[in-house]
């Protein structure tokens, strides 16, 4: 259907539209008009992706000069594929409606592992191996060597692409990863490099967060993207953690050992080169004297995305004399390494700021701040000069050098924590140096500064106002949308007491309490008898889950549950978990019924959808607070309080509730789906917790569903499940939660739609 969104003609590839999609598009249009950033929350299963795509594509068509590119960031490869499929549907609709083939180029980009078509390289199993092998076949000096030595193996796909691929732009169309591979095979071009090259002139790019947020990758892939792009971060409820992870470094003794071997290899290689080809080293030296001017020029003309690792002032300077020659630099690295080793030889926990660390390193081994800052760049240059093919082996030394650069560049927003052992195993010495980023805005700042519109969206972003605070940006629109429903298909219940009136809670004091554990067991047992097919239960941590399950086993509760349903458990092992998941789905499919015990913040809680019968109920045992004794967390909380005036408790609750919402949200993946959401902890009933749940869940929690006993929960659930099992057809939704164009354009409906968006 064709929609009129605030004066903009939008082609929408479906015959029906949800009211909230219309509302969402209105808000999005406003964001684009203002050339600002936006935070939008809309429940999963209400067609966020297609709304985003159809509006932005329409905007691009009408104002080709205002918005030149859409950069759509998603989390996983299946999600990326889903986006591309939606886009394909939209484009087919366009060409059908307008009668002309469209000239849009849209493509997905992923790592070499997913795109490689080289018969030997693509057979490798791990991403790192593929990257390393690819590099050893395509690096510039390898290809240069081939001129003198024709036996040198190179990748013929890359050669072909390099020879002709760049002159011929990728024909317009929609490409998912498989399409790219097919196209590459047909032409004999490397799909990965072709895609990387094509994103520069593509209208729509779909890729993972890391291509924009991780400084190491962003530098390679995304630095030349146009400024007039719209960036969308989908499923962005964890974006602050992604930013932090991208900037943090953990160094263990093993890293240092591997680094030591790396440095030794460097040393011998330098010796060898010196004997054979000393001119090369000289050339490098003079280049370093020139400084990093080239990069500087590019930055001024605003072509590159500024990289947070490499601040502006570095580019203006030449590499300091102390590390200019290769031997000196290796010596410098050795000293730095020895210093780190000595720091790891601690008996107690040390926490210090970056300036303290720099002062200490200067006093102990006379390393200045300045050479440290150039460490990463210098290493890159050296590796290039030495023509080392397999970069993958040098990950340890790369890590150390980027740590050196980061620690000397940022005096704020980072902390260094050295722990001699893990908290759980205080007797085993396992020293770790955490260089942890506390400010997610550092990594994302270049993105906000550079692109004219950045949209952060997810099913669970509540409370909305905390994201602009911790990411340090100013949104022009912030809105939360609810789900319009023809029948109430979600049923959040807060269980506060057992049948014996014992308060249910996972808080630390009552964690070991026998009565609480027994009542949790009873809850699961009762639910297993009345909920059909699949139940997913989430615990706050692996340790807690182990304790409870062991206790249930002793009390014979597990045995009783198994009479109703099979039990599967998520473990930290990925292979084991995916096996358990597969069997779980099989048991749901053939009527036996199953329970999946898993952990909030685990793999299951983030990426796996439990549609329809795979998740008829989600039970959240306890409030999934993060492990509060962790020093990194404490440092971050302190930082948040000092810098952004966010109280510790607020942040902890926010973090716990967004994970709880993620967990329970797994069950509802659309309007025809239905599911119970059971919060088994009395603390959920408090206003400060409840108020932080997304609005689409909150509005279904009424006074009657607070602080229930197990029996009451069973009664309510039984009733709900029977109601939901009644036949439900599409016609029943029409006019209420599903609209045709005529219905949408009625005066009354437009007014109702204006109430869906909840502005903050």
């Amino acid at each position, binding site marked *: 259907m064709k929609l009129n969104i605030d004066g903009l003609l939008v082609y929408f590839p479906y015959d029906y539209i949800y009211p909230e999609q219309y509302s969402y598009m209105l808000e999005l249009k406003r964001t684009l008009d203002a050339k600002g950033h936006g935070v939008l929350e809309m429940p999963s299963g209400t067609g966020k992706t297609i709304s985003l795509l159809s509006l932005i594509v329409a905007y691009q068509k009408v104002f080709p000069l205002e918005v030149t590119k859409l950069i759509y960031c998603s989390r996983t490869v299946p999600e990326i594929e889903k986006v591309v499929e939606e886009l394909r549907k939209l484009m087919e609709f366009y060409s059908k409606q307008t009668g002309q083939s469209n000239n849009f180029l849209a493509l997905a980009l992923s790592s070499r592992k997913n795109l490689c078509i080289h018969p030997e390289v693509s057979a490798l199993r791990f991403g790192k191996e593929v990257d390393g092998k690819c590099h050893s076949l395509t690096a510039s000096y390898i290809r240069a060597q081939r001129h003198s030595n024709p036996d040198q193996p190179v990748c013929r796909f890359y050669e072909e692409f390099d020879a002709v691929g760049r002159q011929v732009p990728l024909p317009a169309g929609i490409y998912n990863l498989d399409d790219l591979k097919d196209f590459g095979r047909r032409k004999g071009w490397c799909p990965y490099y072709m895609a990387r090259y094509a994103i520069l002139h593509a209208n729509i790019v779909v890729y993972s967060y890391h291509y924009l947020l991780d400084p190491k990758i962003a530098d390679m892939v995304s630095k030349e993207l146009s400024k007039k792009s719209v960036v969308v971060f989908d499923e962005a409820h964890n974006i602050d953690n992604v930013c932090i992870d991208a900037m943090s470094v953990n160094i263990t003794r093993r890293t240092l050992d591997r680094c030591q071997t790396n440095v030794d290899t460097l040393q011998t290689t330098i010796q060898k080169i010196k004997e054979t080809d000393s001119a090369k080293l000289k050339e490098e030296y003079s280049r370093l004297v020139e400084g990093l001017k080239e990069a500087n020029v590019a930055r001024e003309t605003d072509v590159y995305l500024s990289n947070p690792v490499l601040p502006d002032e570095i580019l203006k300077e030449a590499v300091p004399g102390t590390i200019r020659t290769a031997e000196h630099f290796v010596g410098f690295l050795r000293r730095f390494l020895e210093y780190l080793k000595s720091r790891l030889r601690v008996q107690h926990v040390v926490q210090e700021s970056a300036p303290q660390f720099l002062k200490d390193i200067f006093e102990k081994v006379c390393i200045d701040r300045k050479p440290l800052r150039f460490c990463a760049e210098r290493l890159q240059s050296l590796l290039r000069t030495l023509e080392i093919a397999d970069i993958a082996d040098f990950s340890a030394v790369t890590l150390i050098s980027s740590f050196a650069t980061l620690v000397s560049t940022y005096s704020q927003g980072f902390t260094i924590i050295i722990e001699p052992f893990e908290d759980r195993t205080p007797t085993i010495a396992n020293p770790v140096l955490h260089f942890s980023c506390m400010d997610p805005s550092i990594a994302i700042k270049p993105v906000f500064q550079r692109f004219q519109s950045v949209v952060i969206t997810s099913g669970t972003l509540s409370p909305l106002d905390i994201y602009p605070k911790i990411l340090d940006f100013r949104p022009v629109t912030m809105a939360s949308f609810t789900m319009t*429903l*023809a*029948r*109430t298909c979600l049923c959040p219940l807060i269980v506060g007491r057992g049948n014996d009136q014992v308060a249910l809670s996972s808080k630390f004091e009552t964690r070991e309490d026998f009565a609480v554990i027994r009542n949790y067991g009873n809850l699961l047992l009762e639910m297993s*008898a*009345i*909920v*059909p*097919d699949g139940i997913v239960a989430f615990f706050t941590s692996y340790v807690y889950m182990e304790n409870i399950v062991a206790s249930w086993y002793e009390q014979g509760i597990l045995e009783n549950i198994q*009479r*109703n*349903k099979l039990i599967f458990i998520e473990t930290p092992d990925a292979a084991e978990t995916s096996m358990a998941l597969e069997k779980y789905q099989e048991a*749901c*499919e*053939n*009527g*036996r*019924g199953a329970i999946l015990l898993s952990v909030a913040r685990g793999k299951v809680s983030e990426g796996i959808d439990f549609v*329809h*019968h795979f998740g*008829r109920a989600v039970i959240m045992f306890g409030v999934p607070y993060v492990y509060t004794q962790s020093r990194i967390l404490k440092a971050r909380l302190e930082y948040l309080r000092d810098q952004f005036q966010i109280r510790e408790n607020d942040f902890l609750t926010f973090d716990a509730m967004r994970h709880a919402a993620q967990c329970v949200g797994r069950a509802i993946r659309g309007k025809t789906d239905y599911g119970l959401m059971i919060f088994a902890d009395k603390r959920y009933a408090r206003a400060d917790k409840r108020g932080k749940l997304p609005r689409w869940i909150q509005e*279904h929690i*009424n006074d*009657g569903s607070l602080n229930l006993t197990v029996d009451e929960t069973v009664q309510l659930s*039984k009733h709900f*499940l*029977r*109601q*939901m*099992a*009644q*036949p*439900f057809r599409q016609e*029943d939704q029409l*006019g*209420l939660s599903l609209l045709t164009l005529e219905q949408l354009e009625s005066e009354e409906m437009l007014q*109702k739609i204006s109430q869906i968006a909840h502005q903050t």
Partner: protein
Amino acid sequence: MKNQREPSAGREATRGHGKAVKPWRCVFSCDQVCCRYNLFLLVCREVLKEDESGSLKATVEEILFQSKRKRVVESHGQVRLGMMRHLYVVIDCSRSMEDQDLKPNRLTSTLKLMEAFVDEYFDQNPISQVGIITTKNKRADKLTELAGNPKKHIAALKKAVDTVCGGEPSLYNSLNLAAQSLKHMPGHTSREILIVLSSLTTCDPANIYELIKTLKSLKVRVSVIGLSAEVRVCTVLTRETGGSYHVILDESHFKELLMLHVKPPPASSSSECSLIRMGFPQHTIASLSDQDAKPSFSMSHLDSSSGPGLSLAGYFCPQCHAKYTELPVECKVCGLTLVSAPHLARSFHHLFPLQAFTETPVEELRGDRFCQACQGGLKDKSVFTCPACHSVFCMECDLFIHDSLHCCPCCIHSQSAP
């Protein structure tokens, strides 16, 4: 009723179609016309509940209400019906049948309703047969074989009340057991299985999806009535085999759902058509015609030891003169189907159903606001008019006429009195 409020915009929306009833009117009508207007009460309850907990009840029951009407309307298409039915009823006797959410418990309640069902079934489908299977402890057992005699089934059901429920049911075993005997039934009859499933889990010895495929190829139609919630495997089972799947809300809804299965299902177009030889034996009492007649055994009592053995009277097969005490039956000797004329006549109405009455809002009605059938006042929002004689009926009478009478009383009246 203290938290009555004016309907908000959202509430109006959920009901839609401009059918909003003002809350005060509902309270009023609830008190006035209590239990006779069962359905209308349903509508009232919906509106009252809605004030507290949002749109849930309103819409779900609205949908139910409509589907009920639809049942009447839908069944009047010109379709071929399978008149000779072979139906296996599978009754779950697993642990979950002890649940007391139906009074006194699920098993007793189910068996009671089953008795009524069997009665009604033979009333409407006299030339059809039923068999009963129970499943518990991962096994399936035949309670009664396929037979056309309601008495035997009802007796068996009455006896089954004392069964001890236990273990899990086995969907696979019961379907398999039913399919074993159904597959030998001739192609012009319908093959049906109706499962009353209380448990949410099933214990199967093999992949049930294979069995579903087999059932589909055998053209067995499987329907399920769930007593607790929607189970995936039943959804697939019914969808694949062309049956229906319903989950009960409460006892009255349960009864309603069971009664849905009384009506013969539309015959699939691929099922064979064939002429069936039938015998219409006369009931004769031997002593009247022959002075020295001796009491004789009925053929149907040969294999069952129970019941009265010897009698003077009976039906004698016109082909081979075997004696039967009850009809309808298939002759054990020559295989002829023996029925009586009224049996056929009663099956007849399925083929010439009464036309659906037209629904009009009560406001448009001119003249007296009385139902022609029950003479009660018309208080529902809509009334129903017979398209033939233009008599007006209330909702309840409309359902009664279509479900039980199968003819319009006013039409009959005008015909019989010239």
